[in-house]
């Protein structure tokens, strides 16, 4: 059992709490991604797991042992840093071996481990190079090698891909995923990039202002965001959010947008007595239909700008006064898009949030 359990973990600087009592259970072999905007406490949380920050309150268990008072080196965790922290005066082999040397592992064994790890990461022919002579991707691999070679119970990743260019990032993302599949080591990964979170995670933890907003698989988070924050954070471009008032009509609950358009919603728990309730309707850019708009529930729009992306296009439009983004498949044919006057909403996918607290009204969802 080598999971990580956070129990009401608090980080306090002076009188200010930056992490407000987090509960999280990372199962053995699970890959969990902490994601959120900068300053949301995700890195601090990771550093508390690593032992680089003291835990102000609560407990952290690693592999069934409370580690609050255990030094980083004795927690049996390894970390990949954002800037890699490769020692420039040591070559690749020495960088990978550093931790083993410090721990006085016998020389023969060090050599064997380094070679094995170098083999896994495709670094065998670079072992005698200095970090300055490596490409960004190779440095990233050395940083991972340094973590892997120690054979730790838990891997911690602190925004490891943010120093790479877009193409390499995609490539290394896939390598990390493959590596995890192969080694099966419990991993906690911090990023601000929701695409990285979606592609890598078994489960994603969305954080904001020192609190967990939602925990779930990538698809759960995408399909059923628990609140407006998660809804806007997961998915790209972000979900459109429009103010509306609910009414109960014969065909079901109906949201009347502030601009007058009506959207018929699927029934949900408590929808019967929500007459007149102020809500925010969430519509993903993908969940818009451009054809068959001569119906009573179409929404009038003003097209402002078309951004062709090749197979798709983004339409920046306005619903009344509010900006509204539509993503549509085009395969290059965008000429007709500027003619667009009306759209229909895919009502099965619409989300509704309480205007006050931002929580989703679709209570089948939740954490």
């Amino acid at each position, binding site marked *: 059992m080598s999971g990580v359990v956070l129990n009401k973990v608090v980080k306090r600087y002076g009188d200010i709490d930056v992490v407000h009592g987090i509960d999280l259970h990372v199962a053995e072999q699970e890959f969990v991604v902490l994601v959120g905007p900068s300053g949301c406490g995700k890195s601090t949380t990771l550093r508390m797991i*690593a032992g680089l920050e003291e835990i102000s309150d609560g407990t952290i268990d690693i592999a069934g042992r409370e580690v609050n008072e255990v030094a980083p080196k004795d927690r049996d*965790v390894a970390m990949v840093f954002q800037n890699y922290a490769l*020692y420039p005066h040591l070559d690749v082999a020495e960088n990978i071996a*550093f*931790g083993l040397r*410090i721990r006085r592992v016998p020389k023969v064994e060090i050599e064997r481990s380094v070679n094995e790890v170098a083999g896994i990461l495709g670094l065998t022919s670079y072992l005698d190079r200095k970090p300055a002579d490596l490409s960004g991707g190779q440095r990233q691999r050395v940083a991972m090698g340094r973590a892997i070679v*120690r054979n730790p119970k838990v891997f911690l990743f602190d925004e490891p891909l943010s120093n790479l260019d877009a193409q390499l990032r995609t490539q290394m993302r896939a390598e990390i995923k493959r590596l995890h599949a192969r080694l099966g080591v419990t991993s906690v990964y911090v990023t601000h990039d929701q695409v990285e979170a979606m592609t890598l995670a078994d489960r994603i933890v969305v954080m904001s202002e020192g609190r967990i907003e939602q925990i779930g698989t990538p698809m759960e988070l995408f399909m059923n965001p628990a609140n407006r924050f998660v809804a806007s954070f997961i998915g790209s471009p972000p979900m459109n959010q429009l103010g509306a008032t609910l009414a109960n009509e014969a065909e079901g609950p109906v949201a009347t947008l502030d601009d007058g358009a009506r959207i018929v919603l699927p029934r949900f728990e408590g929808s019967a007595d929500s007459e007149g309730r102020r809500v925010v309707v969430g519509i993903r850019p993908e969940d818009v239909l451009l054809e068959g708009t001569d119906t009573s529930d179409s929404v009038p729009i003003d097209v402002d700008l078309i951004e062709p992306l090749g197979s798709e296009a983004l339409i920046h439009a306005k619903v009344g006064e509010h900006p509204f983004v539509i993503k549509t498949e085009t395969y290059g044919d965008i000429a007709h898009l500027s003619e667009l006057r009306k759209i229909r909403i895919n009502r099965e996918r619409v989300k509704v949030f309480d205007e006050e607290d931002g929580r989703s009204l679709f209570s089948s969802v939740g954490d």
Partner: protein
Amino acid sequence: MTNMNLYSRGDKLFVIANMVLIGMFAISTLYPFIYIAALSLSSGFEARAGKVLLTPVSFTIEAYQYVLSDPQFWISYKNTFIYTIGGTLMSLLLIIPGAYALSRPQLFGRRFWNLTVAFTMWFNAGLIPFFLNMRDLGLLDSYFGIIIGFAVNGFNIILLRNFFESVPQSFEEAARMDGANEFQVLWKVYIPLSKPAIATIALFCIVSRWNGFFWAMVLLQDEDKIPLQVFLRHTISNLSDDQEFGATLFNAAYSFETVSAAIIVCSIIPVLIVYPLMQKYFEKGILLGGVKE
């Protein structure tokens, strides 16, 4: 920017005049050294008569023979090596760990400790209390007194602390997660990463130790412990103040001028040997020290 043909005539004239001026400044810097070297290789008679200007007149190495056969010269030379090597090592030993500790954000009372260091740069008790303190500590006339008494200065600590601060914190964190304690972090990571800064400080120490004069003169009475600079001073002032003694030294082969010049040359040579090495670092070092906290 470097293509001369693109320059107007006024610009060309300006560039050339500028080069001439710099050349003159460089020559006037260099000349005294050439003069001393020429003097040290001239005969005492010609030197006394003021005939030496640029090159040795009546070339002779008698002045050097006189200097090198003086056992006191060799004793003081040896002492200077002891003070330079011992003092520099002592400085590094005291400055590096302290500067590292001061650079760590987790150090409790960091502001207070830094102020403790910086205050010594602003306020100095002065010659007399320092001297009395050395005497009370029993460090007069002692090798150890010279080596330890001038080992630390605030400027060097702050210079190195700034450098350590510029190394990303994640190097320390990565090493600690790899199992290193603070001493190992410093020794295996921060010191190798800071080689240029440490070399700069070591060179500053070496130069100030090699050239150190005033306190060695004040604190050391024992002739067997004085460094080269004090020996040089004694010789020059004995020779020039005491005209009679100077006159006894004067003969056709060497005079006190040529002997002084020979000692000067002997003590400059080691500086000239390390100078090219130093030049690599001191420009950087000055910038490291920079005008910043």
